[in-house]
C-alpha cells in the first residue's frame, strides 16, 4: 500500500494531461516561432494553453508568460520588476518571512546588489497583517511580494488588502500563487495584484511548466534574454509539450475546483480532528482558517520529524517536513521559525498535503498507522532520556 500525502511538493499527473502531452510530443514537434505549418501547429498548442491558464486565474491570454516553473516565475517577477523600476529610484523591496525560497533567495541576491529588503513578521497564525505592511511601506518601496497560500502550513494571506496597501504607496504587488492555484479559486482582478506566479505540477500538470501573469501595463524586464519568444518577455524555445499539459491541467482545475475543494477539505479536517483526539501531544501549526483545503502541518511532541517521515514512508505513507529540499536532507522549517514557534516544534512537525487521488480509505489507513508509529518512536526516544 502506497499513499501519497505530499501534494504540495508535487502532484500525480492527470491521465488526460499525459495523453495530450504524449500526442504533442510525438506529433507537434514544430518550433512555435516558425512561420510554416509545423510552427503554426505548435503555436496553436501554446495559444490554447495560454487561454486555459488565463481563464483559470481570471486574466487575459496576453498577460500570461510561460516559464519553466514557479521558481523562474518568482525570479522573473522580482528581478524583472526590480530592474524595470530602477529608473524610478525606488530601491526597497518587501516580502514576508514565510515566503518560498524562490522568493527569499532571490531577494537575498537583490540585497547583494544594493536593494534594501524588509521581511514582514508573521505571528503564530502564519498570516501577515496588512497593518504590518502599511508600516513597512515607504515611498522608496518598489515591489511587495507576498505569497497567496503558504506551502508548508497552507494559510491564505489577505492578498487583496495587501495589494491595495502597496498600491496606495505606488509599489508593484507580486504574489506567489503556486500553492493556491488549482486548490482554491484565484482571480487576479479580485486579488488586485500586478504579478502572479503559478506552476503546473502543483495541480496535476507536468513539471517544467509554469507562468508569470503580468497585468497589462506592468513594467517587468526580461531576465532570460535572447529571441523574441513570449512577446519579448521570456526568450527560449517554448517547452510545447509541457505547456500543452499545463493547459489541460488548468482546464481540469477549473472544472473540478468547486467539488474537489470541499471534498479534500472534509478529508483533511477529519484527519486533523482524529489526530488531535487520538494522539497526545499534537497541535496544528498556523491558523486553521483561512487555509487551502488540502494542507495540514502538525507538531508531535517528543518526536523528530525526520524519523517520523522515514517511519511513515516505511509504512507506505508519503508526507514531508515542510518544503522538499534539493538534497533530500531535512532542516528546521524557516516558516515555522518565522512564526515564532519554539525550536523543538520546528523540528517535530510534519506536513500532510492531500490531493485529487486521495480517498477516505487513504485517510483511514493513515489514521490507523500514525498512532502506532508515533508510539513506537516515542518509546525509543524515551529510552534514551
Amino acid at each position, binding site marked *: 500500500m502506497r499513499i501519497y500525502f505530499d501534494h504540495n511538493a508535487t502532484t500525480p499527473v492527470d491521465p488526460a494531461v499525459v495523453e495530450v502531452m504524449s500526442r504533442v510530443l510525438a506529433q507537434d514537434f514544430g518550433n512555435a516561432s516558425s512561420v510554416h505549418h509545423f510552427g503554426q501547429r505548435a503555436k496553436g498548442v501554446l495559444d490554447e494553453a495560454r487561454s486555459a491558464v488565463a481563464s483559470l486565474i481570471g486574466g487575459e491570454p496576453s498577460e500570461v508568460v510561460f516559464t519553466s516553473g514557479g521558481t523562474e516565475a518568482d525570479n522573473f517577477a522580482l528581478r524583472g520588476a526590480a530592474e524595470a523600476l530602477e529608473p524610478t529610484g525606488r530601491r526597497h523591496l518587501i516580502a514576508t518571512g514565510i515566503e518560498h525560497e524562490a522568493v527569499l533567495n532571490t531577494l537575498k541576491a537583490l540585497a547583494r546588489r544594493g536593494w534594501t529588503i524588509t521581511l514582514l513578521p508573521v505571528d503564530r497564525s502564519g498570516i501577515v497583517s496588512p497593518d504590518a505592511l502599511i508600516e513597512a511601506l515607504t515611498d522608496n518601496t518598489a515591489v511587495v511580494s507576498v505569497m497567496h497560500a503558504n506551502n508548508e502550513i497552507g494559510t491564505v494571506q489577505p492578498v487583496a488588502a495587501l495589494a491595495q496597501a502597496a498600491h496606495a504607496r505606488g509599489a508593484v504587488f507580486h504574489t506567489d500563487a503556486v500553492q493556491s492555484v488549482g486548490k482554491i479559486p484565484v482571480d487576479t482582478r479580485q486579488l488586485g495584484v500586478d504579478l502572479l506566479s503559478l506552476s503546473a505540477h502543483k495541480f496535476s500538470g507536468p513539471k517544467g511548466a509554469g507562468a508569470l501573469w503580468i497585468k497589462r501595463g506592468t513594467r517587468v524586464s526580461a531576465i532570460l534574454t535572447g529571441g523574441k519568444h513570449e512577446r519579448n518577455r521570456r526568450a527560449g524555445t517554448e517547452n510545447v509539450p509541457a505547456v500543452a499539459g499545463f493547459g489541460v491541467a488548468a482546464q481540469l482545475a477549473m472544472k473540478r475546483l468547486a467539488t474537489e475543494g470541499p471534498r479534500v477539505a472534509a478529508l483533511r479536517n477529519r484527519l486533523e480532528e482524529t489526530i488531535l483526539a487520538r494522539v497526545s501531544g499534537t497541535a496544528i501549526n498556523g491558523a486553521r482558517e483561512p487555509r487551502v483545503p488540502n494542507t495540514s502541518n502538525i507538531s508531535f511532541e517528543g518526536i523528530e520529524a*525526520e*524519523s517520523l517521515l*522515514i*517511519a511513515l*514512508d*516505511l509504512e507506505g505513507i508519503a508526507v514531508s517536513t515542510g518544503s522538499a529540499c534539493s*538534497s*533530500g*536532507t*531535512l*532542516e528546521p522549517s524557516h516558516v515555522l521559525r518565522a512564526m515564532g514557534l519554539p525550536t523543538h516544534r520546528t523540528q517535530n512537525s510534519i506536513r500532510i498535503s492531500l490531493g485529487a487521488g486521495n480517498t477516505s480509505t487513504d485517510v483511514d489507513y493513515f489514521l490507523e498507522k500514525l498512532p502506532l508509529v508515533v508510539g*513506537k*518512536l516515542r518509546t*525509543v*526516544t524515551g*529510552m*534514551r532520556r
Partner: protein
Amino acid sequence: MSGGVDSSVAAALLAQQGHEVIGLSMQLYDQSGRNGQTFGTCCTIDDLHDARRVAARIGFPHYIVNFEEQFTETVVSDFVREYAAGRTPIPCVHCNGDLKFATLVERAAGFDAAFVATGHYARVERDDSTSRYRLLRGMDPGKDQSYFLFTLTQAQLAHAMFPIGNLDKTAVREYARDLGLSVADKRDSHEICFVPDGDHTAFLARQGVGRQEGEIRNPAGAVIGRHDGVQRFTVGQRKGLGVSSRIPLYVVGIDAKENAITVGPRAALDRHTLTASGVTWIAGAPPARGNRGTAQIRHRHKEAAATIDPIGSDRVSITFDAPQAAIAPGQALVMYAGDEVLGGGWIDS
C-alpha cells in the same frame, strides 16, 4: 551507507539474502554553505548521490539522516580536545561507538529494524554456550577494521551485522561489479572524513586551537628548539620538528601542560609497557590478570604478543614481549586472542 563500495556491497548482500533493507546515510557536517567545495572522501554530496544510486539499483529505500549536531558534540569536540591535550585521537572509534552503533541503532529501532549493518571488515558471532557475542577480525588481514570497533558493548553487538566481514576487498569489488554498482572501482577513503585535506593543524586552528609556541627539549630536558603548538605533533613523528641534528630525531613525548615536546633518537621510542583507560571488555568483564594475548597500538600496527593485566574494570596494563615503538597517548589499544577482540581502551602512557 557512506557511498563507498564496502557499505554498498554490505547493503546489497543483505538484500540478496532476503533481508528487508533500509539504507541510511549519515549527514555529519554542513555540506551546503561553502559553494560546492568538497569535503573529502566520505559522505560528501557525491557520496550521498552514490549511496542513493546503489539503493535504487538494488531496490530498497534510502534516507539521509542528519547527525550534524551529534557528530560535532561527540566526535569533533573530542578530536579537538584530545589534540589540544597533546594526544593523538582516532575519531572513527567514537563515530562507530557513539553514532553508528548508538544514535543510529536508536533510530533503527524506531523503524522496526532489528539490526544495524555496516561495511566494516569485522565479524560478529554469537557464542551459544555463553550467549555472548564475540567480535572478530575481518577475514581480509589487509583490511581488518576490528580495531575501530572495540567500544561496542554486548548490547550493541547484539544488533550489529558486518556482512562483508567474511570477504576480502577483491571479492567485495568483484561483487559490486557483478551487481553493476557504479561504486565498484571507487577508491578507498583514508583520511579523517571531516579533515579531507589531511591538514589537521589547519582544521584545529579553525576550531580555536591555534598557534602556541613552546619548547622542544631533548630527553635530558635541555631546550634545543621551539615549536608552534603541541597539536602539531604525535609521538613517533619525525617530520616537521625544525631541529637540526646529526641523528634522526623523533617526538618521544608531548607535555601539553608545559606546552613542550620532547624529541630523541629512534631507540627512545621503544617501550615495553603501556597503560590504557576507558577500557571496554567485549565479553562484558575483564579477563584474569596475566592473560596472554596480542595487542595493537595503532590501526596499522602489527599486533604484538603481550601480557594483559586488567586494573579494576576499566583500566589495563600491557607488557609487550618485545619493545614497541611510538606508543602514542590518545590512540586506541586493542587486545586480541587470536582473531577475537578481547577489548580495548585509550592509551594514557
